[in-house]
């Protein structure tokens, strides 16, 4: 007989593993979890939230810079991409980080179309990750509310 807690824990485990296997997260996300404990019980959620704030802000900067038709400051776009790459690397947002590498190349070669394309992709990607991590956090909450412990998932 499968209890609600056991079902939720299994869902959580499977979902976590799929996020890694599909390349949304890398082992830096695992490092983040190591830093969460009783002293800092919401650490992962807080850091992730900062990351998504960064995404919004930096993507906004890039969009504005690319909007200056005929007068695009590619070094400005590049510096925002650099910051985004750093943040994504710090939280383990693997796909976003990968897109930033390509994006940086487009900035360096001053390819307007390339940059616009990358910007669109980065925007889609971070929002997708945000939704997935929200689902993951919701599962955690449900487990706790059902009286269970959040399982340690070894990737």
């Amino acid at each position, binding site marked *: 007989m499968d209890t609600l807690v056991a079902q939720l824990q299994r869902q959580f485990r499977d979902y976590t593993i799929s996020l890694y296997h599909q390349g949304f997260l890398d082992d830096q996300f695992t*490092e983040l979890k190591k*830093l969460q404990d009783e*002293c*800092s019980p919401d650490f992962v959620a*807080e850091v992730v939230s*900062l990351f998504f704030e960064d995404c919004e802000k930096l993507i906004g900067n890039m969009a504005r810079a690319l909007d200056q038709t005929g007068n695009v400051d590619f070094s400005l776009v590049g510096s925002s991409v*650099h910051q985004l790459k*750093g*943040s994504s690397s*710090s939280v383990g947002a693997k796909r976003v980080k990968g897109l930033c590498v390509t994006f940086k190349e487009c900035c360096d070669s001053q390819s307007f179309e390339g940059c616009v394309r990358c910007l669109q992709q980065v925007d889609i990607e971070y929002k997708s990750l945000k939704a997935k991590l929200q689902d993951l956090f919701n599962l955690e909450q449900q487990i706790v509310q059902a009286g269970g412990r959040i399982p340690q998932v070894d990737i």
Partner: protein
Amino acid sequence: MGMVRESQFHVLAVDDSHLDRKMIERLLQKSSCQVTTVDSGSKALEFLGLRESNDQNALETHQEVEINLIITDYCMPGMTGYDLLKKVKESVAFRSIPVVIMSSENVPARISRCLEEGAEEFFLKPVKLADVTKLKPHMMKTKLKKEGEKPSEEENATLKPEESLVVEMILPLNQELELEQKEPMLSSNKRKAMEEVISADRSRPKYNDITTSV
């Protein structure tokens, strides 16, 4: 196990990224350090009590807070981590504070420049818990120097000052030797710093004398 007095190490962390400041703060807290974070090199200097002045004599005020290590991002607007490193090492009051540089970019020329300027370590971001544990030996050195400068008080009252100093040195020196074995390719500054500690110890009684007397 630890013979060293229990006071916490205090680290000053410098990074212009809010996210990275939060990360390094947690990493250091998890390693039992007290942390102060600032978002720029100039704020770091302000915190230390060192103003951006060419006049060495004028503004090197007494350091109110004891800092055992500075860890700074390399790429920051205005004053880079390298600039901050230079200022600290040029300062008479603060040059003994170990400085560690972090960077998201693996640029060998950058790394050697920082080590040559006196940085103890260069960490590639994202910094991990395993990296932070490498910091303890560097921070121990500053504690040792401070202990060496003033007579020891309280619990060690029954021991002679010299003996209590040696007791405190046993643990870190083992770590120093381990460090040397693990990292033979040290930069000249790093090796120099370590030799200072080891040669200081030679003037004290040997290990076997101490362990039996304790």
